[in-house]
C-alpha cells in the first residue's frame, strides 16, 4: 500500500508495539503529528520541554523491558533533547528518538530551526540516521529499534526531513533485519565460563560485583541463584541496585565513592571477584592503580568488549550477554560435584561481619532537624519497599541508593553515568505511565527539581500521581559537601537563595503541596501522601543543611581510603 512518510512512521511504531510516544510538536514534525492524531494505538504524551520527553521515554524503558520513544522537532527541539539522549547513552538505556529535520533541499542552508542533528548527537548515541528517502523510513526505524535494544542497549536517533515525511511510497515493514557490520555476541565463550566457575569454587574469599547489565539483561533472578549457590557476598552498583535483593543477608550494599564500608573492603580484599554487567568506573573503584595493588583474580562478564580491560586488567574476560553467561555458569555449577569451600567462607563472612560492625551508614537519629536519611528510611517503610523510585543527582540520590532497599530490578531509576540533574521528575512520568497502578516516588532536592519542574504541568494533564520527596537543604548539597571537604568551607554559589515555596508552587500547578519541618511529621506526611492515590503530592522536607553523605572515598583515592563520618575529617 502507498503511504506518506509520516504515515509510515506511525505504522512502524505500531508494528513495534509502541504504546506511548513522549514528545513536543514543531514545524518539522507536523506531518508526523497529523498522523498520530488520526489513530489511537500509539498514544502521545505532551511534555513541557524536550529534555523531559527523552527522560520520560528513558524512565519508561528502564522500568520495563521495552524501548522508550521520544518525538521532537528540528533545531531547538533536538538540542533540548541532547541532555536526555546523553543520559540514556551513559546508562545504556534503549531509547529511540525521532526528530524532524528541515526539508532536504534546505539542509545546509542555515534554514530556520536547522541544526546538524546527526553531527550534534553522534558522540552520545549508539547510532543515528538521517533519512533522505521516504523508502528508507521503514527499514531505518526497524534498524533503530533493533539497535536500541540489542547488544549493549543505547539511544538511537532517527532524523527525518519534513519533505521526506510528506512524500509517499509503497510501504512494507521489514520482518527481520540483518546488518553485516553489527552482530553483538550473546553467548559467552564456554572455556572461559568453565574457568570462571572453577575459580569461584576454589575461591577462599569470593565476591560478586554486579551492575546495570544485570538489570538490562533481565538477569536478576539468575544472579540471585548464582550468589546463593556460591554462598558469597554481593554488591550492586548504583545502576545495578535491585539486581540482587537489597534485604538479603548476602547483600553488602552499594560499592564505590558513597558505597558501604563492607562492600568496598570486600571488593578490595576478596581473592576472586566476579564482575558482571559492571564496568569498574571511577565512581566505583576509585584509583585503578590502588585497586590493582591487591592480588586477586578478576572475572569480567560484559556484552561490550570495550568495557573489558578498559580500566582494570582482568584474568578471565567473558564477552556475552549477562543472562546467557549466568545461565551457563549455573548449569556448570550444578554439574560440578565440587561445592564452595565452606571452611574458607566462614572466616570470610566473619571478616565481613566485622566490617559491617562499623555501621557505616549510621546517622544522628535524635537530631532536632529532619535528617535526609530518615526521610528515605520512612519512604521505604511507608511504601513497603515496593515503590518505583526515581531520583535526580546529588546527595539525595546517594541517600536514596543507600537507604531504600530494592528487592526487585527495574524499580530504581537514576541517572548514574551522566549524572543529570532534572532527570527524576520526567523519568517518574515515564515510569508511572508504564506502571499505571504502581507507587512512584521521585526523590529529589530543591536544586535538581527546578531543572525540569515544568513537567509538573505534564503530570497534571495526564493525572500522574507521583510523590515528589524533596530533600530541601537549601544547598546544592553535594557541591557544598565537596566545598566543605576540599575547598576550605568556601561555599561558592552552592547556596540556593530565593527558593520558591514548593508546596504553593505545586498547588499552582494543580497538585497537592506539603511542607514538613519536624522529624516527627515525616512519617505522617508520607502516609498521607501515599493515601492520596490520585494526587501528585509534592512533599517539601526541610532537611538538615549540613548533613554529608558518608562513607566517602575522595576522588582519585583508593577504595579502602574512606571517610566514614565527620569524625574522620
Amino acid at each position: 500500500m502507498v503511504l506518506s512518510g509520516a504515515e509510515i512512521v506511525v505504522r512502524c511504531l505500531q508494528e513495534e508495539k509502541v504504546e506511548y510516544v513522549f514528545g513536543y510538536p514543531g514545524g518539522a514534525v507536523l506531518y508526523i503529528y497529523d498522523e498520530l492524531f488520526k489513530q489511537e494505538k500509539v498514544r502521545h504524551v505532551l511534555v513541557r520541554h524536550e529534555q523531559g520527553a527523552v527522560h520520560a521515554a528513558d524512565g519508561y524503558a528502564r522500568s520495563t523491558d521495552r524501548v522508550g520513544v521520544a518525538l521532537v522537532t528540528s533545531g531547538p527541539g533536538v538540542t533540548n533533547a541532547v541532555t536526555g539522549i546523553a543520559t540514556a547513552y551513559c546508562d545504556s538505556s534503549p531509547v529511540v528518538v525521532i526528530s524532524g529535520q528541515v526539508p532536504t533541499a534546505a539542509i545546509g542552508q542555515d534554514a530556520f530551526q536547522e541544526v546538524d542533528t546527526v553531527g550534534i548527537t553522534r558522540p552520545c548515541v549508539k547510532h543515528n540516521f538521517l533519512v533522505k528517502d521516504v523508502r528508507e523510513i521503514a527499514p531505518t526505524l526497524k534498524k533503530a529499534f533493533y539497535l536500541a535494544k540489542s547488544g549493549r542497549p543505547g539511544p538511537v536517533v532517527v532524523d527525518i526531513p519534513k519533505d521526506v515525511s510528506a512524500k509517499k511510497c509503497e510501504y512494507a515493514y521489514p520482518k527481520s533485519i540483518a546488518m553485516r557490520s553489527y552482530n553483538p555476541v550473546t553467548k559467552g565463550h564456554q572455556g572461559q565460563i568453565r574457568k570462571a566457575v572453577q575459580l569461584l569454587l576454589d575461591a577462599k574469599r569470593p565476591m560478586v560485583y554486579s551492575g546495570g547489565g544485570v538489570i538490562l539483561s533481565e538477569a536478576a533472578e539468575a544472579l540471585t541463584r548464582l550468589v546463593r549457590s556460591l554462598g558469597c557476598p554481593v554488591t550492586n552498583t548504583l545502576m545495578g541496585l535491585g539486581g540482587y535483593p537489597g534485604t538479603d543477608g548476602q547483600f553488602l550494599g552499594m560499592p564505590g565513592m558513597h558505597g558501604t564500608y563492607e562492600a568496598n573492603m570486600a571488593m578490595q580484599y576478596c581473592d576472586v571477584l566476579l564482575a558482571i554487567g559492571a564496568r569498574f568506573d571511577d565512581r566505583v573503584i576509585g584509583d585503578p592503580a590502588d585497586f590493582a595493588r591487591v592480588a586477586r583474580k578478576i572475572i569480567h562478564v560484559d556484552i561490550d568488549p570495550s568495557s573489558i580491560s578498559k580500566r582494570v586488567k582482568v584474568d578471565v574476560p567473558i564477552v556475552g550477554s549477562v543472562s546467557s553467561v549466568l545461565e551457563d555458569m549455573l548449569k556448570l555449577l550444578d554439574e560440578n560435584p565440587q561445592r564452595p569451600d565452606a571452611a574458607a567462607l566462614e572466616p570470610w563472612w566473619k571478616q565481613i561481619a566485622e566490617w559491617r560492625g562499623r555501621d557505616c551508614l549510621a546517622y544522628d537519629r535524635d537530631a532536632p532537624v529532619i535528617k535526609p536519611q530518615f526521610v528515605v528510611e520512612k519512604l521505604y517503610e511507608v511504601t513497603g519497599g515496593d515503590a518505583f523510585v526515581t531520583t535526580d543527582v546529588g546527595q539525595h540520590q546517594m541517600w536514596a541508593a543507600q537507604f531504600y532497599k530494592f528487592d526487585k530490578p527495574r524499580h530504581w531509576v537514576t541517572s548514574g553515568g551522566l549524572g543529570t540533574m532534572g532527570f527524576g521528575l520526567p523519568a517518574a512520568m515515564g515510569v508511572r505511565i508504564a506502571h499505571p497502578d504502581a507507587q512512584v516516588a521521585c526523590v529529589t532536592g530543591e536544586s535538581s527539581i527546578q531543572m525540569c519542574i515544568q513537567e509538573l504541568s505534564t503530570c497534571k494533564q495526564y493525572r500522574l500521581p507521583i510523590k515528589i520527596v524533596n530533600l530541601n537543604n537549601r544547598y546544592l548539597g553535594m557541591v557544598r559537601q565537596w566545598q566543605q571537604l576540599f575547598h576550605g568551607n568556601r561555599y561558592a554559589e552552592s547556596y540556593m537563595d530565593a527558593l520558591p515555596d514548593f508546596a504553593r508552587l505545586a498547588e499552582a500547578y494543580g497538585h497537592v503541596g506539603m511542607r514538613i519541618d519536624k522529624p516527627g511529621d515525616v512519617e505522617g506526611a508520607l502516609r498521607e501522601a501515599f493515601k492520596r492515590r490520585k494526587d501528585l503530592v509534592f512533599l517539601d522536607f526541610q532537611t538538615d543543611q549540613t548533613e554529608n553523605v558518608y562513607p566517602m572515598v575522595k576522588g582519585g583515592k583508593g577504595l579502602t581510603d574512606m571517610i566514614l563520618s565527620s569524625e574522620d575529617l
Partner: protein
Amino acid sequence: MRHVISLLLENEAGALSRVSGLFSARAYNIESLTVAPTEDASMSRMTIITRGSDDVVEQITKQLNKLVEVVKVVDLSESGHLERELMLAKVRAVGKDREEMKRMADIFRGNIIDVTDSSYVVELTGNSGKLDAFLGAIDASLILETVRTGVCGIGRGDRILKI
C-alpha cells in the same frame, strides 16, 4: 608504539566522521588516515596510523569495532604487512638543479609527471620513511610544495581483510 589499523566500513555518508570523531572524543592520537571505496562499492577501506600503548591500541580497536558502521578491524602491525604512501612534490628545477633533481628522482625511483621550464612535479611512492628521506636528500629551498596521501597498508601473504 606505532600501529597501523586497517578497517572496512560501510560506504555511507558520515561513516568517516564517526571514526574521526571517536579518535578526538577519546583523545586517541591519529597520525594519518586514508579512506576510499573498495572493489565492493558498498564498502570503504580505511588505514589509520596511530600511536599508543598496547592498552590504548586495544581500546582503539574495540571502540572502532563498536561503531555500528564498522564491519571489520585489524591491527596490521601485529605481523607482516606492507605500507605505502604516495607523495607529489613540486620542486624548483632550473640551472644545475634541474639535472640534479632528475637524478634524485631516479635514485628514489620516482617519476617526474609534470615539467615546466622552472619546475618538476615528482611522484614518489614508498613507506613514509622513504618519502621523508627524499625530502631530506634534496635541497630544502627547492621544495615548492608537497602533498602526501597518508599511509595505506595491507597484510603480507595469507592475511586478508575481507568479509
